[in-house]
């Protein structure tokens, strides 16, 4: 029989190259797969049941052997059974799914933070040490990694199928996801939210490495300035230090130790000073006025890029004393006025 050359090739490819399930490369993957197999089980059982019923009845009661139908009204018992059993299964699925969801979207506190900026059509990763990568991500295995992500334009979605994690990357708001890689290797990175022309080219690779390799990699690819140092530079050049001098008597709050603390707001609410809060204060200061201060901080909307904001956030995260701010004070050229620098500061 003449199986064509091409077809044969595909058959071979099928056997050698093609998998039914993606590799499991993160700690969460087995949990995801367990639910998946459970659901496949449910589907198969449900389908087989339905097929058996249809097939069985069709065979048993086909016209040739059962020429006269018997009219049946229904059966409350049967109907109750097939209401309650699927409902039960669905509820189990719900609980299981919910547990998994909260697990994936609640990063552990000790995780290492990497920032991701999505834009049409590339992924930019910024490591705390200042390493930048485009459409790539290097991570050490065995350590929880938290991704803090934001988009510069439209919705994107950061998808790592072998790690079984994915999260939408949204303009104007940080989203987070975490994972812990288990096996060194190179894996797919996709943008899964349709984002315009080159959506399908917004792909890349994530490389999981042994911690020592990762360390080597960070050293090799450092750009000389860490994210926080970069933030400090922006802090000075945007004139933040003109107001945030750190002096208690000053008209602007001290920013040392702000990150992670709870801020008493002027409108009475209490806000956790997380990354999203800091970013939003810089862009929309009058919406987040801490108690005791006048809303005089200018907005930096349109003046600092998302990367710049990330650097500032990272800087403020690590700012424990005002010592260095006061140091730069003397050398800074900026006067008391709000900055007038037009355009973006490109870190």
């Amino acid at each position, binding site marked *: 029989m003449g199986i064509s050359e091409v077809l044969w090739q595909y058959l071979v490819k099928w056997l050698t190259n093609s998998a039914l399930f993606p590799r499991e490369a993160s700690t969460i993957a087995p949990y995801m797969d367990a639910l998946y197999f459970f659901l496949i089980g449910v589907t198969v059982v449900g389908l087989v049941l339905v097929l058996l019923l249809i097939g069985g009845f069709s065979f048993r009661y086909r016209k040739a052997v059962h020429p006269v139908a018997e009219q049946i009204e229904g059966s409350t018992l049967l109907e109750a059974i097939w209401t309650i059993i699927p409902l039960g299964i669905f509820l189990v699925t719900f609980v299981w799914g919910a547990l998994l969801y909260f697990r994936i979207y609640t990063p552990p506190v000790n995780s290492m933070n990497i920032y991701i900026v999505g834009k049409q059509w590339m992924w930019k990763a910024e490591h705390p040490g200042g390493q930048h990568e485009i459409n790539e991500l290097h991570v050490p295995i065995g350590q929880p990694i938290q991704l803090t992500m934001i988009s510069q334009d439209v919705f994107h979605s950061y998808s790592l199928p072998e790690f079984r994690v994915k999260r939408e990357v949204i303009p104007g708001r940080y989203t987070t996801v975490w994972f812990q890689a288990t096996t060194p290797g190179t894996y797919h990175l996709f943008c899964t939210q349709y984002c315009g022309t080159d959506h399908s080219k917004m792909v890349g690779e994530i490389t999981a490495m042994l911690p020592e390799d990762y360390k080597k990699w960070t050293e090799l690819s450092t750009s000389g300035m860490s994210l926080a140092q970069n933030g400090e530079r922006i802090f000075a050049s945007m004139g933040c230090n003109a107001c945030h001098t750190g002096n208690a008597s000053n008209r602007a709050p001290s920013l040392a130790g702000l990150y992670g603390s709870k801020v008493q707001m002027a409108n009475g609410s209490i806000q956790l000073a997380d990354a999203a809060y800091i970013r939003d204060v810089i*862009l929309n200061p009058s*919406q987040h006025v801490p108690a005791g201060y006048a809303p*005089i901080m200018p*907005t930096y909307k349109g003046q600092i890029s998302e990367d710049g904001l990330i650097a500032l956030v990272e800087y403020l995260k690590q700012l424990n004393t005002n010592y260095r701010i006061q140091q730069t004070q003397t050398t800074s050229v900026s006067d008391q006025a709000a900055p007038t620098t037009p355009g973006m500061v490109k870190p």
Partner: protein
Amino acid sequence: MDNSIVTTEPLMPRETAVHEEHEHVFIPQHRHHFETEEQQREAGSFGMWLFLLTEIMFFGGLFFAYLLYRNWYYDAFVPASNFLSVTLGGTNTAILITSGFFMALAVWAAEVRKKQFLVIALILTTLFGLAFISIKYVEWHDEWVHRHVPGASFDISEFVSPKAHGITDQKPISPDMAEHCQIFFFLYFAMTGMHALHMIIGIGLLVWLILRAQRGDFSAGYVAPIENFGLYWHFVDIVWLFLFPLLYLINRHPLK
């Protein structure tokens, strides 16, 4: 084109019902696929109500957007809202209620078959409707002059430094918050615009109804069009009854 299917069908050798078929037709407006006039009338008003349901949901989307942004940007919504004129808005509310009142009277007139009264009531409904649109136009024009129409020419200076514009009873707000006044004005224009569009369509229908009423179409017991139009007109009123406090009266009391 009238959809009286049975009559457009010339050959009628139906043995059974030809005679009775036409006995219960009281009025020329009766459609043949309805068994009784009663049925037709109730179908008509039920249909109108269902249409109003879609209108509720249509405006509902806008109302939700309003609710959300009002909570997020309350500080911008207050000065933006205070910029609108309560006098004009309040007058307009009264005008619209009056128009609705005459519409209600028109329905009554049609039901008791007073032709002249019906025509007058409909004309008054129209006039008050037009008065509403005119005042609305004055307001929109005002906002245009002050460059509060959202879009490229939107200007926030009156909110940032009211004193400089001779506005004394407003606190200044910061520029980044003032930007959000644009969202208020967008919602304002979208909601009042959508409302006015409904009014204009309504006024067009009113003119048509007046002509027909003048011809005596509705003075012989056939009131469904008047009744159903009335439902529409009152619904448009109701939308405004909510728009007025939501848009004009966000925070009118003197500053603390």
